[in-house]
């Protein structure tokens, strides 16, 4: 194989980070084995990559080999009676929900986009808007099989190889390459979901509502107006949703059909949404986006309840195709922090104000409610998360990087945590501070056991653990 012709510029989801690597397409488990052998022979590092939807450098491997797992995408077994599905690791959430929804099931945990692969979902241990209730995706994995860099196939479940089960899920793909995943789906009795939308006038109310609304709903998510200042700082809108009970939707047979779940591809029935990001581009600057946030808040003032399809409710990021392109050439980066209930308000006040002072406001803020889990490199805690999208330009890169590192210090002081599919500027020292020496030691010991020659390395791994 002439590797040179496989050399490709790979990017993060937001097109703000670029890393060239030799991309090898994987179709079978044997392909993974051969690629690992090749890497060993050539003294190159390896990272598995799905659809490349991480906001940061989790699936980048500068100058090394990247395994493109998207070709290993077969749904192997599906049992509509029990809701258990076994998939190859390159299967996307889109394939999965489309397979299971007509028979009254839905993936237990989904990300804001349906483009993610199951391998990626497990290695970062994704959470959804129902994290406070059902935990991250790892808690719904019945079993998985992964290949370690020694070429061994290991089967892991909460009862078998449990130490690897809890470390490989959340393990950033650094202990092995997932080959297949068995998941338990969640029963749904309708293709629709009831959503309650309500404005929140400030940060205190925002967090109080997230907390108090959670027990009565299946999903909860907040939009936060990142431009609002003073008394209105932290204002936004809460969307709390619950699944319909059996019998509540008399039309369930129909609403569960795929055609009911499709996101419209045209706006107002005329304009193709695939073009929308071009029209958004002129507004994606400090002034334009501030106006968009104000308009969004004003339209959110009306408290109302409505029904929506699962796909529409969950996959907001897919609503405008390629929306991330509207951020322009420099792309975007997302910063997400997780804070305990007690300290969240003060710390987020501080970082929001800092972003205003530096004139580097976030363009989008999203809040969620969380709970702890027992995966090794977990980001879960009893509290909230705030995700902020920042526009990256050639001119603001340095200042933005510096500010995000200052954010890290504020969040760490407040006892916070970070999620490894987001945040690109967190340092090894900051990661150590929230994970703790013991966790890092345990992770490295497992790494030594599974990957004695350090074959698996990503840019993220080198940044945080070396």
């Amino acid at each position, binding site marked *: 194989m*002439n*590797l*040179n*012709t*496989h*050399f*490709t*510029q790979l990017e993060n989801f937001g097109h*703000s*980070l*670029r*890393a*060239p690597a030799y991309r090898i397409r994987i179709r079978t488990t044997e392909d993974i084995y051969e690629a690992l052998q090749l890497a060993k022979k*050539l*003294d*190159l*590092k390896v990272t598995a990559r799905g659809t490349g939807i991480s906001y*940061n*450098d989790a699936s980048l491997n*500068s*100058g*090394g080999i990247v395994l493109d797992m998207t070709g290993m995408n077969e749904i192997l077994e599906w049992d509509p009676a029990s809701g258990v599905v076994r998939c190859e690791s390159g299967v996307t959430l889109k394939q999965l929900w489309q397979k299971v929804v007509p028979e009254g099931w839905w993936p237990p945990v989904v990300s804001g986009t349906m483009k993610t692969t199951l391998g990626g979902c497990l290695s970062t241990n994704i959470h959804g808007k129902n994290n406070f209730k059902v935990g991250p995706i790892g808690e719904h994995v019945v079993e998985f099989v992964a290949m370690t860099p020694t070429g061994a196939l290991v089967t892991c479940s909460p009862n078998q190889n449990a130490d690897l089960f809890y470390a490989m899920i959340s393990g950033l793909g650094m202990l092995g390459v997932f080959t297949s995943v068995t998941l338990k789906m969640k029963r749904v009795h309708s293709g629709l979901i009831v959503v309650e939308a309500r404005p929140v006038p400030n940060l205190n109310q925002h967090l109080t509502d997230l907390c108090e609304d959670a027990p009565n709903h299946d999903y909860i998510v907040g939009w936060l107006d990142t431009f609002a200042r003073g008394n209105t700082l932290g204002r936004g809108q809460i969307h709390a949703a619950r699944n319909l009970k059996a019998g509540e939707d008399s039309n369930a047979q129909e609403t569960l059909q795929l055609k009911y779940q499709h996101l419209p591809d045209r706006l107002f029935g005329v304009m193709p949404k695939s073009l929308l990001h071009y029209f958004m581009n002129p507004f994606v600057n400090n002034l334009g986006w501030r106006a968009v946030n104000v308009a969004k808040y004003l339209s959110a003032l009306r408290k109302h309840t409505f029904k929506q399809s699962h796909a529409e409710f969950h996959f907001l990021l897919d609503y405008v195709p390629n929306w991330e392109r509207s951020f322009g050439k420099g792309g975007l*980066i997302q910063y997400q922090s997780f804070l305990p209930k007690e300290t969240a308000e003060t710390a987020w006040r501080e970082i929001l104000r800092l972003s205003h002072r530096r004139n580097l406001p976030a363009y989008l803020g999203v809040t969620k409610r969380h709970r702890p889990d027992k995966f090794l490199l977990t980001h879960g805690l009893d509290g909230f998360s705030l995700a902020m999208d920042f526009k*990256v330009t050639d001119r603001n*890169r*340095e200042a*933005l*990087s*510096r500010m*995000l*590192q200052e954010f890290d210090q504020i969040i760490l002081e407040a006892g916070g945590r970070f999620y490894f599919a987001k945040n*690109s*500027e967190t*340092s090894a020292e900051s990661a150590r501070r929230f994970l703790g020496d013991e966790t890092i030691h345990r992770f490295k010991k497992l790494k030594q056991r599974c990957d004695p020659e350090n074959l698996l390395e990503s*840019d993220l791994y080198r*940044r945080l653990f070396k």
Partner: protein
Amino acid sequence: MTDTISAGGSPRPAPVTPLNPRRRGLIIGASDGLGAELARKLAYNGYSLALLARRKEKLDALCAEINSAFKEQRALAYVHDVAEYDQVSSLLRKIVADLGGLDLVIFVAGVNYPPGGIDKYNFENDRKMIEVNLIGAMAWLHPIAELFQSARAGQIVGVASVAGDRGRVGNPGYNTSKAGLATYLEALRNRLTRHGVHVLTVKPGFLKTEMLKAAQGPTPFAIEPSKAADDILEAVKKRKQVIYTASIWRWIMLAIQHTPSIIFRRLSF
């Protein structure tokens, strides 16, 4: 110009993070003269560098000078003789892995062994010049062209010479090696532009380097290698195709190229 980098280091000392990456450069033939000057200037501009040369001591000294000036590792040394073609693919792979990618490659390596008079012939000398100046460049730039074409990005700079613009009586082997290199670079440019890759041909006149001592006769318009390095980096920035340095050589060579053979073959330079 000075031989050492002035204290104070780079004007942009931001720490390297994913949002603040370094550009990555490879200089083939970096130990002294033009290659060393290019290394100093690129390091000053915040590049991570892989420096290749035959002579270990000189190379190590240059790396030490650069790394101590910036108080961090900006330059990595690789001892290599460009005539060792078999080493290229594994060494290139190692460099790309060490730097975490590659944005700019400058091929400066070149030797000049004159035959010793206008009626002397020396096949061994000619062969060495072709092996280093031309085949060495092809051995390196061929896999780099593949990489850059696949990645649809990258900049290649080849240092040819005004000596390649016309076959002259003094040093047929050298003229041929540089003419061949210039043609090879032009062909690469024609192949790669459509893939978003930039190829720059540099044609220096006389530079005040070791090589100048080999030149016979007068050496008009000789410039410091530091000045030539500035010209090259400017051309890299502006993505020019062919530059002469000093720029007056463009006009001189235009005249020389258009001198009718009936006159030119009677001249003795």
